[in-house]
């Protein structure tokens, strides 16, 4: 075994040992139990860094590691598991290890007083293990395996505070919604497997290049879209996005790690992996779903009052961006946005966690258990109280809004260029994609600054709460600082300082992608290059516009928001957004309720009708027949025929007994008559 394989194995299984340790020996170290997990995550981070430095080895073109071993074999049918590490894998590993480490560190303060402290770290370990599994896997089947396992850890962590009914509901909803997507992924996998005979992603790409689907590209399109369904579930894309906002029931560091930075990005990562064999038709579906999600979720985020709900919808929207980017062929941009988003969104969530933590402590201090610590309506003016949190959050907000010199500007800009170029190629309805992109960019800038203004600026809404708010401890602020630094554009463009120079280490490492199923990747990239300037200009305008409007509304309060709201609500716009386009209600009414009704009906049919009436009906019929036959048997056969013989004998006996007079003379008379008769008879012979 060479070093790379060993390191890959360590990166995969070390977090699992953390899980086992915390599960079985979590109580041993008491409040210091996090040291074990933290130490292990540190090692994983170091190992990932070891891989990371290989990125700068420019001689390296192919994968660093591509090994697989037999899992089990029935002879003719063999399943293999294995690692595949290339530069994309390494970057993703780095993102996950880093954020996982930071979240572990952050959690030591955030979860400090929780009675299930060790269990929390156990679940985080399980999550990191599963997530690394997805990243490292070289085949769809192995990815599916870990795919479900991250689903499990997500389930466990969303339901961490399971005493709350809302959390208990949310974790179930998350798991089931994901499973809907997983079914598609599974079927898609099988469709591909029975054409090319392998689950290995490279193997599939190779087979597609060699024309395995020649003349049957439609099947590949269908299979591709089906596999992509897995990403729709995991990355919370429309129409399966409904679980992610509910998932905010989990502890906030978990939301940062799993439901913002890494796990939900696994869908995007998977799409990146299967990108080479997604046909142009399939990619179009991907792009449209991404576009709808990006714009729709952004529109919902505008009206949410819960600080985490805003961020959740913002996450869905940003994931939509990434998916849309991949759909239009902007491979590098899609993955780039995944990485930059992971940094600034993790930062945003951890900042919101810091605020919630502070609010919670203040409320606790006041003995107030009714006020919602997450409601922005109760905040305001926290800037002075929490300067580090404020600064970090502002930087991350600037990044997500696409302001120059921050990371989001680079990646979002590339995506928007991709959509523009896509429109230039296909025309017609595809104008929807750039509109969704730029529209969402503007709305994003608007609602993110709304969040900043409502939370940190202005006068405190509740001064007594504001009074007791304090800046969070170092364990919490240190990750914020690291992540906010990583939200700067320059981090990704080194060694170039000029952000417009597309020759930074990142672009170099990721490249422009390859495609095997009929997309001219060079043509796409040329298109993106041409559209770049327009895209940048427009995106600058819309971002400025968004921030400006937001500050007019919430910072300077020149516009009366309430009046505007009621005007908008005349045509139902406000309610539409506030109620998340009624999608949950629609699912509830059209899918969940009818299904539950059907299930009850099925149970009634199965038991009360089929079993009790039809199956037991046989018993009833048998009973009836047996009663009838018993009657026939007794009344006729027994009573009439069998007893008939007796009765017959009885009757004749009775008749004959009259001759038995007891008078000897009669007998004698009979004897004589008989004698005479015999004599007469014998005389005949």
């Amino acid at each position, binding site marked *: 075994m060479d070093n790379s394989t060993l390191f890959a194995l360590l990166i995969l299984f070390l977090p699992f040992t953390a899980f086992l340790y915390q599960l079985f020996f979590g109580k041993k170290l008491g409040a210091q139990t996090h040291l074990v997990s933290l130490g292990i995550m540190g090692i994983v981070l170091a190992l990932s860094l070891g891989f990371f430095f290989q990125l700068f080895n420019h001689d390296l073109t192919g994968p660093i590691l591509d090994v697989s071993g*037999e*899992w*089990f*074999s*029935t*002879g*003719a*049918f*063999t399943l293999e598991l294995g690692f595949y590490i290339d530069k994309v894998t390494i970057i993703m590993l780095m993102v996950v290890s880093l954020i996982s480490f930071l979240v572990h560190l952050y959690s030591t303060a955030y979860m400090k007083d929780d009675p299930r402290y060790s269990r929390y770290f156990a679940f985080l370990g399980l999550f990191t293990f599963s997530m690394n599994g997805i990243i490292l896997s070289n085949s769809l*089947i192995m990815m*599916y*395996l*870990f795919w*479900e*396992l991250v689903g*499990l850890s997500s389930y466990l962590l969303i*339901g961490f505070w*399971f*005493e*709350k*009914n809302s*959390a*208990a*509901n949310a*974790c*179930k909803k998350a*798991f*089931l919604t994901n*499973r*809907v997507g*997983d*079914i598609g992924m*599974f*079927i898609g996998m*099988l469709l591909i*497997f*029975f054409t090319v*005979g392998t689950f290995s992603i490279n193997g599939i790409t190779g087979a597609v290049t060699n024309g395995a689907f020649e003349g049957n590209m439609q099947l590949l399109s269908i299979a591709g879209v089906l596999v992509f369904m897995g990403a729709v579930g995991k990355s919370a894309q429309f129409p399966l996005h409904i679980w992610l906002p509910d998932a905010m029931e989990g502890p906030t560091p978990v939301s940062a790690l799993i439901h913002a930075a890494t796990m939900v990005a696994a869908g995007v990562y998977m799409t990146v992996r299967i990108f080479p064999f997604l046909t142009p038709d399939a990619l179009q579906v991907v792009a449209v779903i991404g576009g709808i999600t990006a714009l729709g979720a952004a529109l919902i985020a505008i009206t949410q009052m819960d600080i985490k709900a805003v961020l959740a919808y913002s996450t869905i929207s940003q994931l939509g961006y990434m998916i849309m980017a991949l759909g239009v062929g902007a491979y590098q941009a899609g993955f780039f946005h995944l990485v930059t988003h992971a940094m600034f969104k993790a930062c945003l969530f951890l900042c919101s966690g810091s605020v919630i933590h502070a609010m919670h402590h203040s409320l606790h201090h006041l003995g107030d258990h009714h006020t919602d610590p997450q409601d922005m309506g109760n905040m305001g003016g926290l800037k002075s109280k929490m300067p580090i949190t404020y600064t970090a959050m502002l930087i991350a907000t600037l990044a997500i809004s696409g302001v120059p010199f921050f990371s989001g500007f680079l990646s979002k800009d590339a995506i928007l260029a991709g959509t523009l170029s896509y429109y230039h190629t296909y025309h017609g309805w595809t104008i929807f994609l750039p509109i969704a992109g730029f529209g969402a960019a503007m709305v994003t800038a608007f609602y993110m600054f709304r969040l900043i203004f409502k939370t940190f600026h202005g006068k405190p809404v509740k001064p007594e709460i504001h009074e007791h708010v304090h800046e969070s401890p170092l364990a919490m602020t240190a990750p914020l600082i690291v992540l906010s630094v990583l939200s700067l554009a320059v981090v990704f463009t080194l060694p170039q300082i000029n952000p417009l120079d597309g020759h930074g280490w990142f672009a170099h490492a990721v490249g422009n992608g390859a495609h095997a199923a009929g997309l001219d990747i060079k043509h796409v990239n040329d298109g993106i290059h041409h559209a770049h300037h327009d895209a940048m200009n427009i995106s600058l305008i819309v971002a400025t516009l968004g921030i400006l409007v937001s500050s007019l509304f919430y910072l300077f309060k020149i516009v009366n928001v309430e009046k505007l709201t009621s005007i908008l609500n005349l045509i139902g716009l406000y309610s539409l957004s506030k109620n998340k386009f009624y999608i949950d209600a629609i699912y509830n009414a059209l899918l969940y309720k009818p299904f*539950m009704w*059907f*299930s*009850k009906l*099925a*149970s009634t049919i*199965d*038991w009360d009708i*089929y*079993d009790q009436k039809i*199956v037991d009906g046989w*018993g009833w019929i048998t009973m009836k027949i047996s009663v009838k036959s018993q009657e026939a048997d007794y009344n006729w056969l027994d009573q009439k025929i069998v007893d008939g013989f007796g009765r017959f004998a009885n009757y004749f006996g009775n008749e004959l007994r009259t001759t038995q007079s007891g008078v000897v003379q009669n007998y004698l008379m009979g004897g004589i008559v008989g004698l005479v008769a015999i004599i007469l008879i014998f005389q005949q012979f």
Partner: protein
Amino acid sequence: MDSMILTLLIFLPVFGAVAMLPAAKIVGKDNPNIFKWIALVITGLQLLLAVVLYMGFDSTLSVSTSPYTVQLDWIKHFNIQYFVGVDGLSMPMVLLTALLSFLSIGISWNITKQPLGYFALFLLLDAGMMGVFLSLDFFLFYVFWEVMLLPMYFLIGMWGGPQRHYAAIKFFLFTLFGSVLMLLGMLALYFYSDPHTFNLITLIQTASSIDATLWGMDMRYLIWFALFIGFAIKVPVFPFHTWLPLAHVEAPTAISVILAGVLLKMGTYGLLRISYPLLPGEVINFAYILAFLGVINILWGAVNAIAQIDMKKMIAYSSVSHMGYVLLGMAAVVSTNDGGAQAGLNGAVMQMFNHGTITAMLFMLVGVIYEKAHHRYIFYPDDYKDPALAGKPGFGGIGAQMPVFTAFVAFAFFAGLGLPALSGFISEALCFIGGFSVFRTLTIIGTLGILLNAVYFLRAYQHVFLGPLNEKYKDYTDMSTMDLAIVVPLAVIVLFLGVYPAPLVDMIAPSLDALIQIIQSAF
């Protein structure tokens, strides 16, 4: 010694049951200790023997070359033999039977009502099950099949829940109906084959050359249908499944474990052991219907499980659903796709084993909470006797009160819904892969089961274990050491085979390859 193992496996429990009679004379009939210790020792020895057998088991040997095979004349006049042997198909079932019997004695540790009868009948049941899995003579198979029926009837009918008599009679009649058809099929095989024999190995050669008609129908078809219905009732295949929820709900915990863990597998085992090799041509013609029934089982079982408010009934319906995977995988034997048949059939046999261990855990765990709360309601029924409780959740928030128990339930539930790294996933996935290679549309419909299975397990988990703690249960203690001792071995097996299924696959694959060969050569 080698040739003795199989005989010992079958007759050791009989010996145990007989030994209880003098024991009863000495200590009295109502003292449960002696009987449960005898039963424990006997089943323990049996488990040990099964493990010894497994250690020496070579999956590449056929029964005719295996050192364990025993073939003796029994009723010479009718050419009936005492013919027992073990191959890759029966090996996992033998291990499963021995393991679950042993653990079931542990589950029955608190039985106080007529312990002599209970444990003696249990051992007879054990002997019958073991005999079914080891017989290679159809007549012997049939005898054991019937031997097992009677103890089961009494175990449900005497030690069961409130509706036990109804449940027992229903189980008995259903199974007897199947047995009669099986008997007809068996006799037809005997009389139409040349030479007349019950030997299942010889019949592989001779049965397919049966060429006769009855009432204008092909004899082999009639035999296939007779045997199929006989086995289908045990599986149970829709629409013969309604005895199962009732019997599972009414039976005592240990018997539910045996019912779901072992008895259901006899149906599919019988199909694979007898119908498949003997009538390959009919298998090919019938495969689509088999797959169709499998998918119906998967979906109908799952949809029904979602509506259940009694946990045991929910698990019973989940068994219907999970046995559907086995049928789907079995039907895939006709796959001409490279590896499709192997995937399907291996998946089916693995699913038989894995469902046995998983469902045993599920029933055992429900038994634990039932012992404490004396009810199993996820929700109380709408017409519950106490109107204040009707329609309300039966539990709630147990997770906080009994963390270890909850962890094991979560483990078992996730195993049941097919989470990767737990054994159920591999077998279900293989069944789907196999099924997909032949019956594409059917299998795609069937994959809905992946979702539906998750729905009812998570729904039950949420309402029983999550949410605020129901005050009624706030002084419940966690699992006892005894409970842990029973559930941990099962959990270890489920986890091990989920992560590393190769030992199981290696054990069964060669035999199944031979079976596939027989069927594929009938095309």
